[in-house]
């Protein structure tokens, strides 16, 4: 068997084990730093390997593993997002109260799970990859063991994650009972001939399980608590990377396994998307904690992204893929700022702590404003194009009410983004905020700022690439 198509993942798995050894044998003070560097390097190398090996598409292991344009795209996003979050999170960890060298190793294994998840074309391999990605996430949510909130976040995430895995498995077993096989191609064959009730119930359970992972309403309850409780570098990772893998596999399940049963899943996706947009926008208004606010904002963003899937059109999926790229850019930028907020060497994460930051740190304030405007969807910035593409596809699919509600909720969302801007620029500060401005984070922030401002230039390239990808799903 030719394993060239999976070489990047094999490399990642082996380097994860080597990283474990490195973390054991290096001296206690520097082991976190050394292991993080090693993991970053191996993520970069495996990204190169994946890009090289995914030039052609094909199957491996009896169609359990597929390498194609979609998996290449989402793997690139996942690996780049992880490298960026590890870079921006590498300084503040010490103050966040954890220095276990296993942290980057667990992230690396989780990324391996995500990468394999976006390549799975079979229910069994999907489930195994999903477990591999979520198990390390439960651990790193609770990695700051001396903090009660962090432990609570880990436990909550673990219990609800186990519940969602149960839902997913129940759905998979029903689908297996109706189809007699777990491969997506056979499921697609059977579902096109006879979409029986048992298959439908199985599909509902599978979608619910996946909605837990993407934190869509009504399966979102864990998100604000986990985001708030987990250490901030971990929250950045949660908010940015796992969503890409989960959205990719959602696209694969809907457009590859149940591609001929659009009418069956379209209403479910519309329902999830509507509720997420509405709740994400309205619940965030009341939040004063930046991490909780980011949690609700991510729920709303996932709702917007799902509008593209709900359209059932290929251009909608291409819109979703572009939306995810934009989502990473905006969130990396926002979390750099949240990670750099300090007062008297303590982490602060309330909105009001940002008072008057425009005078003391103009660059930081300006980039945060740009990113927030982009999240709200103000035209020349990146976020606008993402929303425009998905709403456009919804209009094309005659889901005009969905697009209208999407636009209305973005107006509501604009309120809480603008509130932060008002606090930064127009409120007087009584106590100064210390800001940790380390050079690499600021360089990344500059890059994200540039991408947010100039995304329109790359839009054509993105649309062409993603349309090429989705036409082959």
């Amino acid at each position, binding site marked *: 068997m030719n394993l060239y198509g999976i070489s990047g993942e094999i490399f990642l798995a082996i380097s994860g084990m080597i990283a*474990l050894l490195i973390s054991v044998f290096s001296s206690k003070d520097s082991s976190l730093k050394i292991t993080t560097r090693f993991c970053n390097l191996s993520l970069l190398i495996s990204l190169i390997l994946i890009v090289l090996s995914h030039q052609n598409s094909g199957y491996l292991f009896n169609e359990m593993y597929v390498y194609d344009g979609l998996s290449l795209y989402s793997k690139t996003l996942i690996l780049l997002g992880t490298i960026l979050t590890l870079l921006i999170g590498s300084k503040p960890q010490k103050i966040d109260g954890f220095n276990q060298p296993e942290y980057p190793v667990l992230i690396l294994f989780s990324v391996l799970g995500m990468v394999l998840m976006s390549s799975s074309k079979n229910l069994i391999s999907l489930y195994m990859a999903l477990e591999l990605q979520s*198990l390390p996430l439960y651990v790193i949510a609770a990695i700051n063991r001396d903090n009660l909130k962090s432990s609570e976040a880990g436990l909550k995430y673990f219990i609800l994650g186990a519940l969602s895995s149960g839902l997913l498995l129940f759905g998979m077993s029903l689908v297996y009972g109706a189809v007699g096989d777990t491969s997506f191609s056979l499921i697609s064959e059977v579902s096109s001939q006879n979409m029986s009730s048992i298959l439908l119930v199985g599909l509902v359970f599978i979608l619910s399980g996946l909605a837990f992972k993407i934190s869509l309403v009504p399966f979102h309850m864990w998100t604000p608590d986990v985001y708030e409780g987990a250490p901030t570098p971990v929250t950045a990772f949660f908010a940015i990377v796992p969503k890409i893998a989960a959205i990719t596999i959602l696209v694969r399940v809907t457009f590859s396994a149940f591609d001929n049963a659009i009418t069956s899943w379209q209403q479910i996706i519309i329902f999830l998307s509507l509720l997420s947009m509405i709740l994400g926008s309205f619940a965030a208004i009341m939040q004063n904690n930046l991490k909780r606010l980011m949690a609700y904002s991510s729920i709303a963003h996932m709702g917007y992204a799902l509008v593209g899937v709900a359209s059932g059109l290929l251009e909608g999926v291409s819109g979703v893929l572009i939306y995810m790229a934009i989502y990473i850019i905006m969130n990396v930028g926002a979390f750099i700022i949240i990670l750099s907020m300090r007062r008297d060497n303590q982490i602060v994460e309330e909105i009001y702590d940002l008072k008057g930051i425009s005078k003391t740190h103009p660059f930081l304030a300006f980039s945060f404003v740009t990113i927030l405007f982009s999240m709200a969807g103000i035209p020349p910035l990146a976020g606008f194009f993402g929303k425009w593409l998905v709403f456009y596809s919804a209009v094309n699919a005659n889901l005009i009410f969905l697009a209208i509600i999407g636009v209305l909720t973005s107006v509501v969302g604009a309120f809480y983004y603008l509130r932060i801007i008002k606090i930064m620029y127009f409120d007087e500060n009584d106590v100064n905020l210390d800001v940790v401005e380390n050079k690499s984070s600021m360089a990344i922030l500059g890059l994200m700022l540039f991408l947010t401002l100039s995304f329109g230039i790359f839009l054509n390239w993105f649309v062409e690439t993603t349309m090429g990808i989705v036409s082959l799903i």
Partner: protein
Amino acid sequence: MVTSLFFYLFSFIITACAVMVISSRNPVHSVLFLILAFFNSGALFVILGAEFLAMMLVIVYVGAVAVLFLFVVMMLNINFSKIKEGFQKYFPIGSLIGFILFIEIILMVFSGDLLVNKNNELNDNIPNTHKIGSLLYTEYIYVFQLSGLILLVAMVGAIVLTLRERPGVKKQDIISQNTRKVSDVISIVKKESS
């Protein structure tokens, strides 16, 4: 005829045990009923001709999981009456959801959409342990390796969350004991006699 008689016997015991698991007042009794239920479901697998699965069920569930439960129940002093406090409050909604799920499953089973593989090839000469092994290492090697990785992650995670070194704890460090030299510890001080 005899097989179906045994099937109904074992199924009845499993159902009765399952009821007892959630209704018995003493948590130790619950765990013991759970073990009995596992044994009987193992017997059901034997009836199906899947002796390997039966053995695995007994080893894994009875041997490891149930004993673990028993340890947890006996070691930790959990106040079970406190856990059951909300029972009355949640009973109506819980039973409603349970009832809906039950109806759904009944409808699905009798809809005839379920593929029941009647001509299973378990009765040929190759024992099914052999069969599972050869499938696991050829066709399912990918998921087999993945499950290995999951176990590795679970182990690392458990250690990360539980291992901690408290300062001031006196424990033996063999390397430092063995590398101790006389010159490091004892120094000869000349004391002038007064």
